[in-house]
């Protein structure tokens, strides 16, 4: 029962945060709404007994990435006068709503057609740090390593690209 209330609360917060991200005019307000969305998503993961994902969501997304985004916004020191004027934004909003309406009804239909079933808590330390670690390094070792090499390539690429521009000056 308590978990249901938590689920409702986190879902509402995450949707509100997402709406705030696209509707707020000032980038700082948008970024803070995104933080709310990311933290409530972490709460939803925790409700699904995915403890490791919960922690990683908080450390990586809510902690590191968002604080870098806030850092950039602070660094650029965006003022209200610097923002572009968006005169037709309500037109775009209505247009977007009209386009998305069929998708919404489709999703509603799918959700309603889901069979009602009782959910139970998954046991045996599902989603814990040790279990996910064992799975990653036993069954999924090769894909895991390939993904890390991909990230490393992206990292080095970013450094090289950023360095090149300085040389050409």
């Amino acid at each position, binding site marked *: 029962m308590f978990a249901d209330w938590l689920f409702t609360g986190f879902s509402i917060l995450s949707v509100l945060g997402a709406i705030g991200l696209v509707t707020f005019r000032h980038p700082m307000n948008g970024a803070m709404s995104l933080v709310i969305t990311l933290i409530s998503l972490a709460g939803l993961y925790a409700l699904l007994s995915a403890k490791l994902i919960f922690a990683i969501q908080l450390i990586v997304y809510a902690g590191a990435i968002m604080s870098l985004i*806030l850092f950039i916004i602070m660094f650029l020191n965006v003022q209200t006068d610097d923002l572009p004027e968006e005169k037709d934004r309500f037109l775009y909003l209505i247009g977007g709503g009209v386009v998305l309406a069929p998708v919404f009804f489709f999703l509603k239909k799918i959700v309603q057609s889901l069979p009602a079933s009782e959910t139970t808590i998954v046991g045996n330390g599902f989603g814990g740090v040790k279990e996910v670690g064992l799975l990653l390094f036993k069954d999924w070792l090769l894909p895991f390593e390939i993904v890390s090499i991909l990230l490393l390539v992206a990292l080095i690429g970013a450094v090289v690209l950023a360095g090149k521009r300085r040389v050409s000056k």
Partner: protein
Amino acid sequence: MSLLDIILVAVRVAFAAFIPLCFIAVCVWMERRGAGFFQDRAGPNRANIFGFRAAGLVQNLADGAKLFFKEDVISDHIKHKFYFVLAPLIVFFAALVSFAVVPFADTLVLNGKSYIMQGIPIDIGILWFLALAGFGVYGIILAGWSSRNKYGLLGGVRSAAQVISYEIPMGLAIVSLLVVYGTVNLNEMAQFQGKLLFGFIPMWGIILQPLGFMIFLIAAFAETNRTPFDLAEGESEIVAGFHVEYSAMKFAIFFMGEYIAMFASSAIIVTLYFGGYQIPFLATDTLISYAKPIAFLLMLGLPAGMYFFAGWIRRNNVSHYPRENDPRVYEANIYIKCFWGLVIVLELFLFALLLCQSEGSAAHIFVVLLQVSTFLLKVTMMIFVYIWVRWTLPRFRYDQLQKLGWQVLLPLALLNIFITGAIVVALS
């Protein structure tokens, strides 16, 4: 849930919430007396209530009253007032909640049920601390940005860049620690450190991971924005940095947040590298089975220790020039009586324990209390190290700070992971 469960939940949450708050007073007092000690002066020793100065602790009350009744100014040029008010609260609560996963005693077993002695009984341990340490940055960024002041902005930029870059060596130092302990759960780490290396050295993290400890300690100093890494508030260059626009209680909340962060990171350092709540050579099982002899030894030791403590108070709490009916001697006598009263109460408790049946609930609770005291003693010593460093070392230059983080600590932390990995693989 039985009544016992509810009481234990309340006790644990209260401990995790109120002990850091109480330690703000202790930290501020230690900081000021420590500063006095290192600079060869007396420190605050005048504020008193009816002549009782409590070694300078009364000064905290005076400071608190001052901050509480000051005018709370929000200048007109501040546009985003919500973020301006939110920022100190984020710093404060992120620091407070990060302590919630630190175990302050070994798992308590009562009536066959075990209770994990943490504020939040969650087993992701150190990951939670890393997450909350990251959230503290938001407060600093928002404070610096919403102040709309170049000093505030510069302080915020400096502080955020520093915290973000020192999180990396800190995380890497933790990685090599995880290789050694094989768990992220702080309670399991503390239990691991209760074992003995070669049969006579306690297996504390600092012995297994000396290099990792140095890296973690330096990174923890930088994370808490303490000297020698307090460039965020470099008075000589940027006035007070990110909290330049804050006054009264809003400033006080930043201030308290900094001390709670110091307490929480001392608690984490103690748990990771100094055996947490473990008393050296006495693991929890040994303590429980020898509860009565230990209680008896304590009953003998307490009055002896108190005798010397009373002598110390009497020698130091006197006026430095001859006075008739020295009020400080009278003050010292009252303190000594209070402490003797405390000792008598403790003796009665220990005596009651001797009468109880052995290895019963009383022994378990006694062991928990012993471990809590050990933990708090270790944390206090670690806080003293923070204060010691602050009043001994000058501030870094900003480029030196970034160089230290990226060019020294990061490679060292990576090297430490490889060495640790090699040794662990060779030994297993």
